[in-house]
């Protein structure tokens, strides 16, 4: 019972005890060692060493970038299937500690596998003449990507028990995330898409240091939302995370002067959190509407912060608008360009129109699939329209966002690039109608939240 220290998370202890004994891990470990021996022996006899080196990294890459993340997709699903997740939630472990523990245990196993190949790296240095520093850098990079992929795998694990479902969720998430850069490119916020990659080296490093941990935490938060009991507030933490990311991006933009670059990063990290927040349900549980961090006691400021940070779609509207305003403020966006205004309308319309429809039809389940399906429907519609046009050479990234004025513009002007002023008016009108609809529906919710705030205050 004392083989693991008390300070280690119980989930890490359990997962390590279980995981290290599992057939999957033992098989991966033995196969990796066998391939490593084979690689080193081949490198000794290979003059050029290129083939052996490629094989060496392919084996490590497959193990750490496919094998371990694949195990991650079962980590929470197996708890749900085995009826043990609820038992875990009835202990003193929060959903955050459960999900983070699952990820940490898998990452520790990856570290163990990475450490087990170090002797072969050293052998390659002595007998294969490779550059040790660059080999270690490559291994470190693979581990960093492994950390992110494993977090993504653990994050999607609670949602679908079938492999197809998990793939659908992963593709849907990617589709949602890729909407943002498409619009940013179109709107001129990001400028050319190559900016990100032609930036100075230190900027790339800063960008990775900023976005990688935030993305990792966001992936894990996605999983937490799938298992947390209704009474557990996992939303405020996510929103604070997004705000921290935006604030860090703003500071770096001010410091470096690369406003479009850091505006893109801020949008990329905050977009999934905004979308998830906008699709959250409002639960009538008073404890969720107590003072939010960093305000320990009920006060006017705490209640004001709650208007942005309380769980549920109602507070997600002001929160998302705040994020959008912040991103636009960081970016060198100019409102006097026809194209930029038009694409901004498209972005807002793509988000708020399906959400307004959700409220109108009062859909309570399958909200996320509805959102994805709506975007897919619009995409297909645009593709069909595009197929009828005589000039099909000009592709625009805004094709991914054809929800509002874009379709009209496409229909009237007959190409992808020309933006008509009435399209902007129509797009803006659509955004305003969508927002107004959401606000009308949220009035009743805000009244209920005020009552819940009062109850939460009484409970304090």
């Amino acid at each position: 019972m004392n083989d693991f220290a008390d300070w280690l998370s119980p989930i890490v202890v359990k997962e390590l005890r279980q995981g290290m004994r599992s057939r999957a891990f033992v098989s991966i470990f033995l196969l990796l060692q066998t391939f490593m021996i084979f690689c080193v022996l081949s490198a000794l006899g290979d003059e050029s060493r290129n083939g052996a080196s490629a094989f060496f990294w392919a084996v490590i890459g497959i193990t750490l970038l496919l094998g371990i993340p694949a195990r991650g997709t079962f980590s929470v699903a197996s708890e749900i299937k085995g009826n043990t997740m609820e038992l875990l939630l009835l202990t003193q472990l929060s959903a955050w500690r459960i999900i983070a523990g699952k990820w940490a245990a898998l990452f520790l196993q990856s570290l163990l596998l990475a450490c087990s190949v170090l002797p072969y790296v050293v052998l390659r240095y002595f007998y294969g003449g490779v550059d040790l520093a660059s080999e270690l850098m490559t291994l470190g990079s693979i581990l960093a990507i492994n950390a992110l992929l494993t977090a993504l795998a653990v994050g999607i694990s609670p949602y679908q028990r079938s492999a197809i479902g998990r793939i659908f969720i992963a593709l849907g998430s990617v589709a949602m995330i890729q909407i943002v850069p498409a619009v940013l490119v179109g709107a001129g916020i990001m400028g050319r898409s190559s900016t990100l990659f032609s930036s100075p080296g230190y900027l790339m490093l800063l960008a990775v240091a900023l976005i990688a941990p935030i993305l990792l935490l966001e992936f894990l938060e996605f999983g937490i939302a799938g298992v947390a009991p209704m009474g557990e507030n996992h939303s405020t933490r996510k929103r604070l995370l997004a705000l921290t990311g935006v604030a860090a991006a703003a500071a770096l933009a001010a410091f470096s002067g690369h406003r479009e670059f850091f505006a893109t990063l801020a949008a990329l990290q905050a977009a999934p959190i905004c979308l998830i927040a906008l699709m959250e349900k409002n639960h009538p549980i008073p404890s969720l509407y107590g003072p939010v961090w960093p305000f320990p006691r009920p006060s006017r400021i705490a209640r004001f912060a709650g208007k942005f940070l309380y769980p549920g779609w109602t507070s997600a509207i002001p929160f998302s608008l705040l994020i959008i305003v912040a991103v636009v403020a960081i970016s060198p966006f100019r409102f006097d360009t026809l194209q930029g205004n038009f694409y901004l309308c498209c972005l807002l319309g793509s988000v708020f129109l399906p959400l307004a429809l959700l409220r109108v039809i009062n859909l309570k389940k399958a909200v996320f699939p509805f959102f994805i399906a709506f975007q897919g429907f619009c995409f297909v519609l645009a593709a069909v329209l595009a197929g009828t046009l005589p000039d099909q050479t000009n592709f625009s990234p805004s094709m991914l966002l054809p929800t509002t004025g874009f379709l009209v513009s496409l229909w009237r002007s007959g190409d992808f690039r020309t933006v008509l002023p009435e399209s902007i008016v129509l797009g803006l009108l659509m955004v305003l109608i969508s927002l107004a609809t959401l606000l009308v529906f949220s009035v009743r919710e805000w009244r209920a939240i005020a009552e819940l705030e009062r109850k939460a205050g009484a409970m304090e």
Partner: protein
Amino acid sequence: MNQPLVEVCDLCRTFGNIEAVNHLSFTIQRGQVVGFIGANGAGKTTTMRMMATLEMPTSGSIRIGGYDVVNHPNKVRRLIGWMPDAYGTYDNMTVVEYLDFYARAFGFKKADRVQRVEEVMDFANLRGLSDRAINKLSKGMAQRLCLGRTLLHDPDLLILDEPAAGLDPKARIEFKHLVRLLADEGKTLFISSHILSELGEMCDTLLFIDAGRVVHHGSSDSLLRERREDAPFSIVEVRLAGGEEARTALLNWAPLQPGTSIVEATREGARLRLEPDTPAAMAALLRKMVQDGIAVAEFRREDRKLEDAFVEILGRKEASTPPPLPSL
């Protein structure tokens, strides 16, 4: 009077158009062992899950130890031990590792953790199994392990959903023994089961529900008494010495006797319903039977069973419910 440990008030839970729990209200005092009985789909598990903070009530409230399960789920979780019908164990883990994991998850540290795991293993008679892999345990052993896990944080209230389902007779006897020990320690137990006779032996109070509503709340004795007052007849089992001929004679004879009717024909005789339920009436029937040449080998008044009482309560409820109006 002490405040009840559990107060369920006007509890409702709907799933779409289905009302799983329908205005359910009851209380449980500290130290009581309460049997929770109902047919499949009566709302037992839903109610228990709401008590265990795993399900949100649609309306109504549940307070455990004075805490509302919706507003203070974490405080309630410290007071309850939940054992679902699907036990929930892990492969690739030994008995002691399983309990050690949950002890860590409940916040036990160092020596306290080791001591608590050992206490629970002693209580649940798991000492000899400590290093055995969980997937090598019998169902009875796994059930004892899960009961042990439920007890780790020393909860005031144990909520056990169908704990005896699928156990062999030996494991059932062991389980009943453990329940008795827990009751002696002053724990409050809320147990659901289909095996009414066992619940009758184990529990102080029985709570019958049907279609999400309480149909009886009281001790098993009070239930049987109530039935006796409501139904002034007895069931008599008659076994005959002769063969098929004697059986036919009894079946022809019984309906002709005043206050007597046939409940069912058995392989060796019949079960008869006799009214009124008095010793004199029974003696008169037996005397008449012998006088008329029925070859009686055994004449026995059946004990009343909880199962019969339950079925009767449900029958009464259905009879008192007006039939739905025919649609035009």
